[in-house]
């Protein structure tokens, strides 16, 4: 019956079906985007698995059976369950249009970005000289908003003085990461996910693991300054380059901001941690 119905549907394929598929595509597209942007992609996996099992049961059992009815009602009930569990994420998604305006305001000219790069390099060098620990995240457009919201909004032009001031030990914002998008420092004291990679060097502390963790999904790069040694590291795509000097850092930043042709950012072999 199942396959007969499908064959019949293809025989009677019409414009209404095309419209059907387009509408479902739009719906699925926004659902996937919602899961990806809110960093809950693993939930989508569970839901897809459950739906597949439910559909198989519905297809295999007669309409009068309890399993058929149970699975049908579970499918109806699922959207309500998702809305209830992820109400906060949904609220955040609907307010994203406001954030899109902020992102567009960040669209900086090349000169402004170069200025920002110089400021970041200077700040990093000064922090390293004084052995002040720092975590500087260079965020891309699709950076997870919940991480930005975990800290304190700053929304200021990047300057070396600002970055150094934030990371001074007694500063209320020194604990956590600063998020830089374009030439704007958008937030400070943000909480980052820790990397669970067992191949990272054993002497990596929480700061380094957080710096690497945020780059694992490819939505950010991160500069890490060690508090103990003053060593500057640069994390990219879940890997880390240690002992970065100012010239190397400048090159990385110019590549990260798209001001220089990618030479290092796409080379995976380059980004292995020195144990």
């Amino acid at each position, binding site marked *: 019956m*199942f396959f007969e119905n499908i064959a019949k549907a293809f025989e009677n394929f019409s414009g209404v079906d095309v419209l059907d*598929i387009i509408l*479902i595509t*739009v719906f699925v*597209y926004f659902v*996937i985007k919602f899961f*990806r942007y809110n960093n809950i992609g693993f939930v989508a996996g569970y839901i897809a698995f459950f739906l597949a099992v439910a559909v198989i049961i*519905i297809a295999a059992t007669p309409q009068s059976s309890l399993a058929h009815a149970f699975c049908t009602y579970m499918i109806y009930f699922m959207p309500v369950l998702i809305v209830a569990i992820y109400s906060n994420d949904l609220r955040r998604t609907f307010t994203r249009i406001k954030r899109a305006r902020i992102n567009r305001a960040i669209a900086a000219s090349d000169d402004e970005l170069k200025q920002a790069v110089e400021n970041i390099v200077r700040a990093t060098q000064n922090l390293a000289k004084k052995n002040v620990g720092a975590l500087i995240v260079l965020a891309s457009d699709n950076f997870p908003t919940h991480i930005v919201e975990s800290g304190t909004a700053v929304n200021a032009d990047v300057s070396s003085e600002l970055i150094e001031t934030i990371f001074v030990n007694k500063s209320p914002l020194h604990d956590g990461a600063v998020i830089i998008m374009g030439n704007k420092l958008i937030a400070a004291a943000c909480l980052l996910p820790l990397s669970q990679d067992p191949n990272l060097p054993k002497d990596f502390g929480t700061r380094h693991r957080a710096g690497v963790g945020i780059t694992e999904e490819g939505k950010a790069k991160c500069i890490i300054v060690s508090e103990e040694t003053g060593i500057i590291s640069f994390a990219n795509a879940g890997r880390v380059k240690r002992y970065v000097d100012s010239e190397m850092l400048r090159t990385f930043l110019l590549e990260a901001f798209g001001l220089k042709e990618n030479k290092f950012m796409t080379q995976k072999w380059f980004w292995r941690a020195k144990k």
Partner: protein
Amino acid sequence: MKEFFLELLETLKTCLTKNWGLKCIALATAFVIWIVAKGIYGV
């Protein structure tokens, strides 16, 4: 008001020019959903 329409235009432009990989995944998923729905309900 003007700002709202500019915003809307920009959003539509972004929707139509970016994320082609994701759109293809969405289209494939939608097609599978359509086939399964047709198979089960025969509508």
